[in-house]
């Protein structure tokens, strides 16, 4: 009995439970186990299968009391890497597409900013440039090559993904069963 309580104490200390709270829980548990033993009731009848796993029992109790962070559920723990993998893959794909577009020659796709009801009139440049229409001039002045935008977004997204992965690896709590 006291060995079980001692192991719980160790676990609470490891999890950073404040000493007064750990003392309180340990005292209550020891008293209950002692009373149960005096009545011929086994620890398993009092604690269920937790009687064989003091560390999980202690962690579960402390988590449910809200004195340590609640362990993540297994479901959300699995979903998070999936979302991260998808995000990273999308960012990498975008980077590859942007790089290929840039390497295969002159950017051919442009984003064109237009304002409804706004007529921008530019005077076409004089020779030696060939004459151009006002619409073409508008595109050249207000557009940005989408390849460069994609490349920039992909690099930012990949950087963010790396940061998420490194944080996720550090912040994973120890698995606790209740």
């Amino acid at each position: 009995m006291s060995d079980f309580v001692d192991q719980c104490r160790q676990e609470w200390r490891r999890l950073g439970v404040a000493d007064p709270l750990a003392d309180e829980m340990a005292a209550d548990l020891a008293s209950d186990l002692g009373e149960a033993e005096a009545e011929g009731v086994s620890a398993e009848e009092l604690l269920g299968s937790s009687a064989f796993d003091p560390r999980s029992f202690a962690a579960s109790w402390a988590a449910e009391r809200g004195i340590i962070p609640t362990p993540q559920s297994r479901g959300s723990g699995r979903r998070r890497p999936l979302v991260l993998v998808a995000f990273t893959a999308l960012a990498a794909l975008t980077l590859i597409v942007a790089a290929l577009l840039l390497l295969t020659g002159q950017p051919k796709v442009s984003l064109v900013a237009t304002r409804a009801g706004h007529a921008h009139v530019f005077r076409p440049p004089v020779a030696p440039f060939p004459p151009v229409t006002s619409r073409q001039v508008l595109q050249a002045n207000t557009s940005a090559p989408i390849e460069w935008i994609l490349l920039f977004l992909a690099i930012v997204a990949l950087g963010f993904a790396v940061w998420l992965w490194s944080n996720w690896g550090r912040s994973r709590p120890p698995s606790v069963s209740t």
Partner: protein
Amino acid sequence: MALGAQRRTELLRGVLDLCLLAVMDEGPAYGYEMTRRLRDRGLAIVGEGSIYPLLGRLERDGLVETYRAASDGGPPRKYYRPSSAGRLALGLGVSEWRAARDAVDAVLAPVKVEVAS
């Protein structure tokens, strides 16, 4: 664990908080005393878990109030009793339980097969 015992554990897990609120509503009780009251009604805590994490959750959610007092000739114990929110939760939970029990009974009532457990 046998299938029957496993099913009992699963069923109990869903209503153990209500059972704890109910037994402490009869009078403030400490941990082992609640286990004893449940056992006296044929509800043994077997299988997974125990009442302690659940008591911790009830306390965190403000459904119980606690205080320390000396037990009969023993060391000071932590006593639990339902708060007003806990009584409300108990009332709602009992209604839900009865509705679920009646619905399940309606489904299972025609079943003629019975096996001694």
